């Protein structure tokens, strides 16, 4: 069974500081990995995704993530955090639908709440 662990429930950083959010996954095959962001009262917005190939993936809003198979990790990074980045961040692992080739269910971590101090 697939699972995702986000060890940090809350993280506080100063505006302009760098950010790294941790994510570890468990999956029997090559995973599809995602980072989503959720602002209060909003749905989920996809920041970036990893399917295959280059292990360093670039996303929107200046975020990037690195897939490390040996560590079963997919950590999210941003060199300089902006106050508007304050939100909850979810890492997710997805399976592939063998029949349709499309995405099957996503399994999410419990999320990391990011607070940005001005």
């Amino acid at each position, binding site marked *: 069974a697939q699972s995702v662990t986000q060890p940090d429930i809350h993280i506080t950083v100063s505006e302009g500081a760098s950010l790294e959010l941790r994510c570890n996954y468990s999956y029997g095959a090559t995973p599809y990995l995602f980072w989503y962001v959720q602002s209060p009262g909003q749905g*989920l917005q996809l920041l970036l995704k990893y399917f295959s190939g280059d292990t360093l993936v670039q996303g929107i809003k200046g975020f990037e993530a690195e897939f490390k198979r040996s560590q079963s990790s997919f950590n999210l990074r941003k060199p300089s955090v902006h106050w508007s980045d304050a939100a909850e961040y*979810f890492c997710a692992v997805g399976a592939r639908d063998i029949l349709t080739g*499309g995405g099957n269910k*996503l399994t999410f971590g419990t999320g990391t709440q990011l607070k940005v101090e001005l």
Partner: protein
Amino acid sequence: DAGVTQSPTHLIKTRGQQVTLRCSPKSGHDTVSWYQQALGQGPQFIFQYYEEEERQRGNFPDRFSGHQFPNYSSELNVNALLLGDSALYLCASRAAEAQAQYNEQFFGPGTRLTVL
């Protein structure tokens, strides 16, 4: 191009009642998934509909049922509501593709259900 839309935005019910939540997928999408997000938790997969059939189901009781219509819109029904059913219910849609490619799921804003 409208994204995924859900209705209603908020809903308050009492224990034992039944509720129906609605979802319209993004234009061009034909596969709809439902997720439950309890307070302080990540979303949990309930089920997925494609071609008007339930294709995959998560670990949810039979009180949770769904339907997909010919226009690809979907409903989530929950019977005999429990206090623990209070959550944000998210709908996600994607296109089923013929190519060997993973298509991104797009999420709606959710329906906040409160059970008293």
